[in-house]
C-alpha cells in the first residue's frame, strides 16, 4: 500500500521516492496545498475503490503516514 501511494504521489507531484517517507508532511516538506491533497485523494478513491473521504478526515491528514494508514483501513484492496 505504501509503495502504491508513494508511486501515485511521485506521478502527480513530479517527485522521486527518495523525497517521500512516512513522516513527510504534505505542507511543510512537499509544499503542496489543500487542492493538491484533494486531487491526490480523488485519485486514491478511484484506485482503491474507496467511498468519498469525508472533509473532517482529510483535515486530520498531515503526513504521508497518516494517509497510508487511512487508506489501508478503508480500502477494498
Amino acid at each position, binding site marked *: 500500500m505504501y509503495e502504491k501511494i508513494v508511486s501515485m504521489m511521485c506521478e502527480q507531484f*513530479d517527485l522521486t521516492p527518495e*523525497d517521500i517517507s512516512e513522516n513527510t508532511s504534505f505542507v511543510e516538506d512537499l509544499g503542496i496545498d489543500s487542492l493538491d491533497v*484533494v486531487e491526490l485523494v*480523488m485519485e486514491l478513491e478511484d484506485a482503491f475503490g474507496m467511498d*468519498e473521504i469525508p472533509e473532517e478526515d482529510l483535515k486530520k491528514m498531515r503526513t504521508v503516514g497518516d494517509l497510508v494508514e487511512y487508506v489501508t483501513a478503508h480500502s477494498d484492496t
Partner: protein
Amino acid sequence: MKIILDAMGGDNAPEAVVKGAVAACREFGEEILLVGREAEVKACLAACGAENEPRITVVNASEVVTMEDDPATACRRKKDASMTVALTMLKNGEGDAVVSAGSTGALLTGATLIVKRIRGIRRAAMGPVLPNGGRGVLLIDCGANVECTPEYLLQFAYMGAFYAERILGCENPRVALLNVGAEDTKGGELQKETFALLKAAHEAGRINFIGNAEGSDLLTGKMDVLVTDGFSGNVMLKTVEGAAKFMFRQLKGVFYSSTKNKLAALAIKKDLSGMKAMLDPSEVGGTAMLGIAKPVIKAHGSSDDRAIYNAVRQAIACAKADVAGAIENNIEYMKLEKEN
C-alpha cells in the same frame, strides 16, 4: 468543433448565457452544448427563437454550483451540477472547450480536479487580457495563486507567451516581470529569483524577456505579457478597473458641467463610444485558465449575452490555436531541476 457552456453559471444565467450562445452559434457556426436545467434552458432557447437550432444541444444537469459552495466540496459532491457536468464532458472529449460565468474558485478547482493540469505544470493561472491601445496585454496570474514560487512564475511566463503569440497574434511576445522598479536588482526574493530564471530563458532564446516593469507600464504597450503572483496581479487588475471607472465618472462630470461642455461632448460622442467599447469587459471575452489540459474560459460573473458571445469566440480561438498543446510540447523548459 463543440463548445460546452455552463448554462447556469453567472448572475444573469441562464437567460444571458443562452442568448449569447445562440448569437455565437449563428455567427461562428460551431456546435454549442448548453449544460443546465433542461426545462429552464429550453425555455430560454424558445425565447430566443432558437428551440429548433440544430447546432445547439441541451444537456440536462439538475444542480448548480453557487457562490456559497466550497469549491473542492462542490466539485466532489455536486456531481450533477452544470459546471461539474460541463468539465467532465470536456475531460471525456465530448467537447473542445468550456465556458462558464460561475464561481471562479469552483471553476478553477473543478478544472484542476476534473480536466487536470498539463503534466508538469505546477499551478493553473488566470490570464485576463487588458486593453493597451494595441493587441492587448496579458496579466498572468491575476488571482488563482496567492502564494507563488519562482518556478510558478517561470511557467506563467511561458504560458503567457504562448497565449500572446497564438491568440493575440503577437510575434515573439515581449514578457516583463511586475516589480517595484525597472532595475535588475529590485524586488523581494521571489522577484529576484524569477528575474534570474527569466533572464536565463531569454538567453537560451526561449522567451523574449524584456526585464522588470512597474505597474504604471502595464497599459503602455511596452509589453505583451506581464508576469506576477496572483496576489499582486489581482490587486493590480482591480486597481486598473477602479481607476478606469473613476476616470469615466470624472469625465462625465466635466461633460455635464455646462452647456458648452455638453456640446463638446456631443461633437466627440462617437469617439467616446469607441473608447468605452475598447474598455468594456464584455467585449474582451473571458479569462483563460492557462495550464489546464484543455481550454477553460471564465466569463465575468455579471456577464451579459454580449460577454458570453465573446467568451465563446475566445474559447473557439483557444481550442483552434491549441495553446495547451504548445505548453505541453515545451514543458521540459518550464521545470526547475530539483536541489539535492
